[in-house]
């Protein structure tokens, strides 16, 4: 019955739903998860990598984390090719702002601008929505560290801790239980890794299956976006006791 209203993205169903948007969110529900946690001295983003192969160049390519501007980064869940388009759009919007105002774009404005773009694909043009959810992490002088989650509908919200992708509901409820308002960045990393390890489907958790990035202020006061090296990540997994050794063949 509802099939009649599926194929056109820009019309409502009789029950008042936008099916294409919902189907886009379904697609993301099957993709690798990502978790973001806001702490008082930084924002932590952790992502589960779906493509793990020894042949993949881990040093030069990232699957989940992208830098949008010097003060904003994002984690991605969903269709990678769609994500690339939106990441480029976000980068252009950030630079366009800086070109006009000679100042970094406030994080919420960047998220809002990108979400306005996403919303367009749910209302006109006849094109399908983007099958990506984002976790934006950044710092600006107005509100300090911030974490935003956005989805294919173009909705966004500011969060203290959020999860997108596979098993995001389980991850979200775990975060709700364990998150404290005055959490430090190190504790946030630990919490993120713990939650991800519990919600990931895979049998063994190694540093190859994860990506970890942090946004914080360096000692000189500049915003730093740092992706954890696989070695450091491996050490952290052991330290926090979340690593499970791969099954010996």
């Amino acid at each position, binding site marked *: 019955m509802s099939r009649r209203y599926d194929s056109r993205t820009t019309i409502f169903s009789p029950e008042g739903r936008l099916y294409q948007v919902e189907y886009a969110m379904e697609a993301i529900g099957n993709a690798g998860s990502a978790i973001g946690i806001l702490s008082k001295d930084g924002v932590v983003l952790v992502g589960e990598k779906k493509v793990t192969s020894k042949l993949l160049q881990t040093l030069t390519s990232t699957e989940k984390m992208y830098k949008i501007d010097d003060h904003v980064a994002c984690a991605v869940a969903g269709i990678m090719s769609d994500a690339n388009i939106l990441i480029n759009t976000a980068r252009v919007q950030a630079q366009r702002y800086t070109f*006009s*105002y*000679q*100042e970094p774009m*406030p994080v*919420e*404005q960047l998220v809002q601008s990108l979400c306005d773009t996403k919303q367009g694909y749910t209302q006109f043009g006849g094109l399908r929505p983007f099958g990506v959810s984002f976790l934006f992490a950044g710092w600006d*002088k107005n509100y300090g560290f911030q974490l935003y989650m956005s989805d294919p509908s173009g909705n966004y919200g500011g969060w203290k801790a959020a999860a997108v992708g596979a098993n995001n509901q389980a991850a979200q409820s775990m975060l709700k239980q364990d998150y404290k308002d005055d959490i430090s960045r190190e504790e946030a990393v630990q919490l993120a890794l713990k939650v991800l390890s519990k919600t990931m489907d895979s049998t063994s958790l190694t540093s190859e299956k994860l990506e970890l990035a942090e946004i914080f202020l360096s000692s000189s006061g500049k915003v730093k976006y740092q992706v954890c090296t696989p070695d450091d990540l491996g050490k952290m997994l052991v330290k926090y006791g979340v690593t499970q050794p791969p099954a010996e063949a």
Partner: protein
Amino acid sequence: MECVFGMVGKGFALVVADTSAVNSILVHKSNEDKIMVLDSHKLMGASGEAGDRAQFTEYVQKNVALYQYRNGIPLTTKAAANFMRGELATALRKNPYMVNIVLAGHDKETGPSLYFIDYIATLHKVDKAAFGYGSYFALSMMDRHYHPNMTVDEAVKLADQCIEEIRSRLVVAPQNFVIKIVDKDGAREHSWRRTTKD
């Protein structure tokens, strides 16, 4: 024969402008306010083609207000200055705005600041600035007497010296001037200097 000039003091910035509206040899009025209050903490003294002046300054003022409504935070003085410069630069190769602007603002984090923006989209952050024929006298006076961290009284006294110089040395000197000030408490009119009543 329009003059607009400004300077930065300790915790404040001052903008002075003449108040004559002239067409060829006729003075339309001598109480034309050319220093627009851009938002609560910014002043914009503008001189140039009268129609362009009104059009451009109002356009900037409305855009600054729109930014604040959309985003819940005001633009910094630097951001507003760069926005203005961008608009002038974009219009330059088609339909230039013949307006010269002295922008003064006060931001909580960075204190008072003054920007010199001319009609071909030059932007300079400065301590003292002046436009018009009066600039020859105002800048010389300020170069001689200005020092950083002046009090309001010292700055107004220097402004008066500049006005006196303009009045006595410029052949068709403007009759009246208005002085406006911006500091942490906001942008407001300070006083007038009149030789004629309108």
